């Protein structure tokens, strides 16, 4: 008899998810479903709001990457305000804020969420596989992680007034410049931040290489990749063109951001509030793709900061030009963190940060599309307004949504590789979660909700009857139930 396995909720990711595995009579996983069961409805309730509120409203989608939502919305309302080109100071401030955001988010994910798996092993005692244990046993690494994140948060605070949910971007620019006294402490710290990021890349590299076969194959499901790239195909986080490559690294598409709706479609499934984007010229089954650090390092030709570029070359020399392994997300993520730290160092010397030439004006339009590379991947904000400046349509495709099917495929691969007969084991539950965590999903962004994150595995027949359940609570204890 075919059956269904569910993990609910998934832990150490941003938000609350549940996984169901559909198992056939031959114990083969036919389908994996990462359910998103909460609904927040931002696209609906921002309708009617004046467009200039959008960066402030939508950043409340998330407490981890609010700057990404703030700036994606800002890019969209720049267009509505008729501004295609920001002033140099406004652009410098936005980029600085964005690099700081990606840096702190990557630090949060690697040091706080992922490093326990990597440092102690995926099968180690879950009660001791957490940030507290990292602090106890890898104190230097843990403290560096905290300081890297704090540095990014402080840069954000200097620009917007708050580390989370500040006020900075306005239609056509930014509201306030930085001051020299705010910049000085960052200049004093940034060299250490770069060094620590570089050391962390080395740590991730060594961990990956130490168990190379496992890391390369764990949850691997070949897919296309999508991200922004710069004019010279360089890694680009703030602005650029959309580039899509296939699983072999061949170029499929390269087009301006305002054409995204021709490139992508979204499929809705009854069992999740998270949509399923796919490439329009393919089908939902064949057109899914991946975004995020792994995708960005696959699509770009180079990184325009020296240490990160050196690390990128090393990464590709070891793993190949088009890296498919989900666990390589961790490695690519820290290369990006290094890039952000280097980019921040360059920007801190830019006198434009002190200028009050911050807002451009133009002729108002009715539509704006803002696309940015958020920490977790490509983030799309699309708005239309009416003649009274009120939002009439909003379409938000967040990074985690772009990775929706990719996560399911990785879960399916892991479950097929590790499901032992029909028995639900804590080990399987654990590995499924590790696969999801590699993508650094922000389920609160994608759906959107927040909450505690224990984990549950359910076994269900195809008729919907629950056959068994395995729950891991947030304190690490396991509970079986039939």
């Amino acid at each position, binding site marked *: 008899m075919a059956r269904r396995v569910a993990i609910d909720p998934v832990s150490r990711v941003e938000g609350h998810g549940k996984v169901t595995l559909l198992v056939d009579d031959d114990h083969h996983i036919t389908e994996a479903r990462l359910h998103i069961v909460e609904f927040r409805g931002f696209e609906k309730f921002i309708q009617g709001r*004046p467009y*200039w509120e959008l960066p*402030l409203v939508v950043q*409340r989608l998330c407490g981890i990457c609010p700057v990404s939502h703030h700036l994606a919305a800002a890019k969209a309302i720049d267009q509505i305000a008729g501004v295609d080109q920001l002033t140099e100071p406004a652009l410098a401030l936005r980029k600085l804020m964005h690099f700081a955001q990606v840096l702190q988010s990557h630090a949060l994910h690697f040091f706080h969420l992922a490093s326990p798996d990597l440092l102690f092993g995926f099968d180690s005692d879950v009660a001791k596989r957490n940030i507290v244990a990292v602090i106890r046993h890898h104190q230097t690494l843990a403290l560096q992680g905290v300081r890297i994140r704090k540095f990014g948060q402080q840069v954000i605070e200097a620009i*917007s*007034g708050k580390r989370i949910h500040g006020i900075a971007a306005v239609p056509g620019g930014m*509201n*306030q410049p930085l001051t020299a006294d705010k910049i000085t402490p960052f200049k004093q710290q940034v060299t250490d931040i770069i060094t620590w990021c570089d050391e962390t890349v080395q740590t991730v590299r060594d961990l990956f290489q130490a168990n190379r076969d496992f890391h390369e194959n764990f949850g691997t499901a070949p897919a296309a990749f999508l991200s922004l790239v710069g004019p010279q195909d360089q890694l680009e986080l703030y602005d650029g063109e959309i580039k899509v490559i296939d699983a072999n690294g061949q170029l499929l598409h390269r087009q301006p951001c305002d054409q995204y709706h021709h490139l992508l479609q979204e499929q809705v499934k009854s069992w999740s509030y998270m949509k399923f984007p796919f490439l329009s010229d393919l089908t939902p089954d064949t057109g899914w793709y991946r975004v995020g650090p792994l995708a960005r390092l696959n699509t770009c030709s180079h990184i325009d900061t020296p240490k990160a570029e050196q690390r990128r070359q090393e990464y590709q020399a070891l793993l190949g030009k088009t890296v498919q392994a989900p666990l390589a997300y961790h490695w690519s993520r820290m290369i990006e963190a290094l890039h952000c730290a280097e980019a921040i160092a360059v920007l801190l010397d830019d006198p434009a940060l002190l200028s009050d030439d911050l807002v451009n004006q133009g002729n108002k339009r009715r539509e704006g599309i803002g696309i940015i590379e958020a920490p977790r991947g490509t983030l799309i904000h699309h708005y239309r307004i009416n003649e*009274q400046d009120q939002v009439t349509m909003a379409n938000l495709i967040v990074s985690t949504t772009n990775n929706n099917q990719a996560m399911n495929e990785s879960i399916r691969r892991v479950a097929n590789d590790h499901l032992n007969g029909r028995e639900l084991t804590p080990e399987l539950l654990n590995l499924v979660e590790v696969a999801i965590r590699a993508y650094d999903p922000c389920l609160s962004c994608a759906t959107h909700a927040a909450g505690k994150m224990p984990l549950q595995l359910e076994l269900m027949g195809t008729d919907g009857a629950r056959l068994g359940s395995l729950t891991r609570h947030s304190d690490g204890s396991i509970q079986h139930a039939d």
Partner: protein
Amino acid sequence: MSDQPQFQLDGQPIPFQPGDTIMQAAHRAGVYIPHLCFHPQFRPHGSCRLCVVNMQGKTVSACTQPASIDLEVHSETTELRQSRLRLIQLLFAEGNHFCPSCETSGNCQLQALAYDLGMTHYHYDPFYPTRIPDGSHPELFIDRDRCIQCDLCGRASEQADHKAIYLLAGRGQHTHVAFRSDDGELGSTQAQAEDRASHVCPVGCILPKSGNYPDIAGARLYDQIPIHAQGNHRRDDGGTHDD
């Protein structure tokens, strides 16, 4: 010693001039009595009831009660602070106030008083009323969700701008800010962004369509200094004294 008549406000002598209300005299003396609908430049309205004080056993609104010699007035009492908290909670429950994204946040007198009075929750079930915004004006946006019906816009429009564009229409919980125009829209009136009425709103109901969110968090009027310490400073006068 001055011969000017005085009354006592929380034990402090407050000199007053003939015709002064308690609020006007306190305001001139730099003493803050909580208020929302009062503005020193416009006739009192007496509607928000935040300024209700205890005057020798009677509760009266300070903005309408004439000052007189030897009065003993109490404002900062436990009972009055509790009443003010409940009034603020009623206002929050009656409208749709979402501070996190409101551009008046940090400069809003309603929010500042809520913080100052220790409001931690709505207390009353919110009405979640349906209020229609008006974006018809090229320079101004009316967000009726945030209106507290203080009628400051109406008084400023009449007494300062001499246009009488704004008014309160409807009754009871359906009371709303309206405009004297053929189609009822602000865009059909002679309202201008530089009008006094366009800047007098103590909350976030009347908004400009440009220059929004001028300050980062932490730099706004009430971000660092609570409203009782800011006293009679107001956002519509650039945070300076409002008389």
